[in-house]
């Protein structure tokens, strides 16, 4: 029988106060459990009280001030009392572009204003929930019950759930996979697998487009007994939903990709960091991992985000897993030598890892024959907004934005603007719409492929409101670590606000330009580097401003 609750006893004993095995290092290593512990309290009670925080702090152990710093960092963790059920309703740009503004007005009519408790429920606006192809989405946190995402959703449905109507998520059953690619990888040997990845010339699909082969070899060659593979499934870029879609289509493909990666680089443990709002995909992955059993040959732990866009940045993601505030680290050192827990870490996007079993089975050369010289293989694009069939579209690299819009059934109404790459991307000019979406053409034409989000706006869309929403998004999501981004995103929001009201001055435009390049030039991470892209491009092509 365990001696104390520290070692698993169900009730406190006198040993609780004076028995500690493993010493200081074992104790501080438990800090990685902080975010799951906060989640557990949030999920069951609906908020994290002072008492709960102190209890978590004592048990992990971590200083209460630090635990509070972590808790207050995330949108999905509350440190003030909240109603038992909170609906986070997407009002982001892809929904607005698709004309789905009725949900918000319906909610105001049916339940009352935002952020105001009504009985045991409340609704608030949320950044993009990544269900853009399905329709208006709501993520509903329910104390003591499974949180749930519904898309498409109506105000009536939300009101009913907030009133306590029982609703469960229908998750399809998972069927075991043969892991043929993994078996092939093991037959080839780790070095040969990495060689195929190098030959495939696949670049990371998360946005930074770094050649995966170089990363894999970097981690394999790095010294250290402990190495990690981390799958970045913290998909939060507005208008991006391909990673969620991939997991929903076949969670085993991702698990197999991770298993092959872990084998190829010699990793000792793998993590999947999945966006907190993607509860359905998380459940699928959990079931798939149970079904897979020992087949992957490596322990894969799923870690749930808690509502912070910045945690999609690789080093911020590491800090989040480790139980710290999800703030980025200055690079170098790069993750390949010093990543998660300071160990060499391979971190890849879901889409990149899902492509791996195919590369191993068919060979890197076969993969490289698709696409172009610098942009090999197939790529997923998320087409949303004012198109007939929004969804995930897979094309060979080389398709243009216009072709992708046509694939999605064409635009609805007259196209006013196209945003490529999500909030971190830019609005395209007429010429740019016909540029092939490859890394090399994109670079030459100054187009950010980013995460592969293409949001189409027709002439019904209020582009000043859209641009303001993007500026608001960055001011809300900036972690606050470095000054250019912390202050810059906020100043940018103020100035865009004045532009939207037609109250801007020449000095405002000059300031906006200056703020943009300081964020791009001096911020610590990609969030700050890209925070001005969309606003600047909106100004450049005349979507906003131009009152003179």
């Amino acid at each position, binding site marked *: 029988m365990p001696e104390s609750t520290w070692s698993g006893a169900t009730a406190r004993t006198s040993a609780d106060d004076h028995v500690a095995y493993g010493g200081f290092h074992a104790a501080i290593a438990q800090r990685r459990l902080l975010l799951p512990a906060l989640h557990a309290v949030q999920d069951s009670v609906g908020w994290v009280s002072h008492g709960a925080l102190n209890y978590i702090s004592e048990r992990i152990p971590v200083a209460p001030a630090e635990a509070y710093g972590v808790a*207050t960092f995330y949108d999905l963790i509350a440190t003030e009392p909240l109603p038992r059920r909170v609906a986070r309703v997407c009002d982001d740009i892809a929904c607005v572009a698709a004309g789905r503004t009725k949900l918000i007005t319906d909610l105001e009519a049916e339940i009352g204003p935002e952020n105001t408790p009504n009985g045991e429920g409340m609704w608030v606006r949320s950044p993009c929930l990544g269900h853009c192809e399905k329709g208006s989405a709501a993520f509903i946190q329910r104390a003591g019950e499974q949180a749930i995402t519904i898309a498409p959703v109506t105000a009536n449905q939300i009101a009913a759930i907030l009133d306590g109507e029982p609703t469960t998520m229908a998750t399809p059953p998972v069927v075991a996979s043969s892991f043929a690619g993994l078996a092939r990888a093991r037959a080839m040997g780790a070095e040969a697998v990495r060689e195929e990845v190098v030959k495939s010339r696949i670049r990371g699909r998360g946005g930074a487009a770094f050649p995966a082969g170089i990363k894999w070899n970097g981690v394999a060659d790095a010294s250290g007994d402990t190495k990690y593979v981390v799958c970045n499934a913290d998909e939060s870029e507005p208008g991006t939903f391909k990673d969620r879609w991939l997991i929903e289509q076949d969670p085993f493909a991702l698990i197999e990709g991770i298993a092959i990666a872990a084998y190829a680089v010699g990793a000792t443990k793998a993590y999947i960091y999945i966006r907190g709002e993607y509860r359905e995909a998380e459940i699928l992955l959990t079931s798939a991992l149970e079904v897979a059993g020992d087949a992957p040959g490596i322990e894969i732990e799923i870690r749930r985000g808690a509502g912070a866009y910045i945690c999609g940045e690789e080093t911020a993601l590491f800090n989040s897993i480790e139980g710290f505030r999800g703030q980025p680290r200055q690079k170098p050192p790069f993750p390949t030598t010093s990543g998660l827990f300071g160990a060499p870490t391979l971190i890849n996007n879901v889409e990149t890892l899902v492509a791996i079993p195919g590369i191993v089975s068919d060979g890197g050369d076969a993969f490289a024959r698709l696409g172009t010289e610098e942009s090999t293989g197939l790529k997923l694009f998320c087409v949303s907004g004012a198109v007939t069939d929004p969804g995930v579209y897979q094309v060979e690299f080389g398709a243009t934005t216009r072709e992708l819009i046509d694939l999605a059934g064409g635009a609805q109404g007259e196209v006013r603007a196209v945003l490529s790459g999500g909030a971190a991307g830019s609005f395209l000019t007429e010429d740019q719409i016909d540029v092939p979406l490859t890394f090399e053409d994109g670079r030459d034409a100054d187009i950010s492929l980013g995460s592969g989000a293409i949001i189409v706006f027709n002439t019904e869309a209020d582009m000043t409101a859209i641009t303001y929403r993007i500026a608001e998004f960055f001011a809300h999501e900036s*972690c606050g670590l470095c*000054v250019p981004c912390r202050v810059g995103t906020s100043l940018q929001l103020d100035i865009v606000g004045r532009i939207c009201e037609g109250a801007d001055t020449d000095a405002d435009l000059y300031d906006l330009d200056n703020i943009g390049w300081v964020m791009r*030039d001096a911020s610590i991470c990609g969030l700050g580097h890209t925070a001005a892209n969309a606003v600047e491009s909106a100004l450049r092509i005349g979507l906003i401003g131009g009152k003179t």
Partner: protein
Amino acid sequence: MIETTLADPRLVEITLNGETALAHADATILDVCRAQDVDIPTMCFLETLTPFNSCRLCVVEVAGSRTLIPSCSRTVEVGMEITTESERVANTRRILYEMYASTVDLSLSDDDTRRWMAKYEVKPGRFGEYESHRKVKIQDDLYIRDYDKCVMCYRCVAACGTEAQNTFAIDVAGRGLSSTISTEFDVVLPDSACVYCGNCIGVCPTGALMFKSEYDMREAGSWDESRQTVTTTICSFCGVGCSLDLHVQDNRIVKVSSPLDHDVTDGHLCIKGRFGYAHIQEEAGRST
């Protein structure tokens, strides 16, 4: 210029502002610049703490890098070409100071900050004049916290945590521009883990953290550094041998600090060395 050769494997050759220089392989760009008398502004950096990379004022140009590089944390590499002053660097630093000035009360910031702001012709009101909106936290007789003056350099968090005191009474709470330094649930300091070592005051660059004695005198208009003397002594409370700088005005101790470069303290003290001076004043009062 250091007279040595590349035969020493610990040295790397770099180019600093167009001139070849030799640097230790584990030196940061800032280390090299300071050794070569190349002036670089800093705000969040402190010699005794691990660089936190928050202020970005120390950025320099490094050939081949898409963005500017914070010199405080980047280690030199063979062949690195560094430019510390250029229009790009100067404009960035100027705008960063202007960003600070619009969001923080810089009235008590250090001399270095004033000098650089003058040099770059910073317009403090460019992005809007800063308006005070937070109440000064006075929760005890030892020190006050005026977060209107906080630049979020994280030095106090580091000093309270693993870098000096290992007390962890404060951390950053919240996110983005509204993030702030806080105890858990913003409890008052006496209810927090704070042990009143005052090391957070010792590292604060902007006067956001201040001795209550200094705060009271500033409020009363009697704080006058030109009338102050600094007496260096050794703390007599225990055998560690911490160096104390007693700041004295009108024959009364108004503040205690310790030199950053002192081997024993690295500038850090404990509650006794930092605040345990009242008995001296009492004696002095009684004798006159």
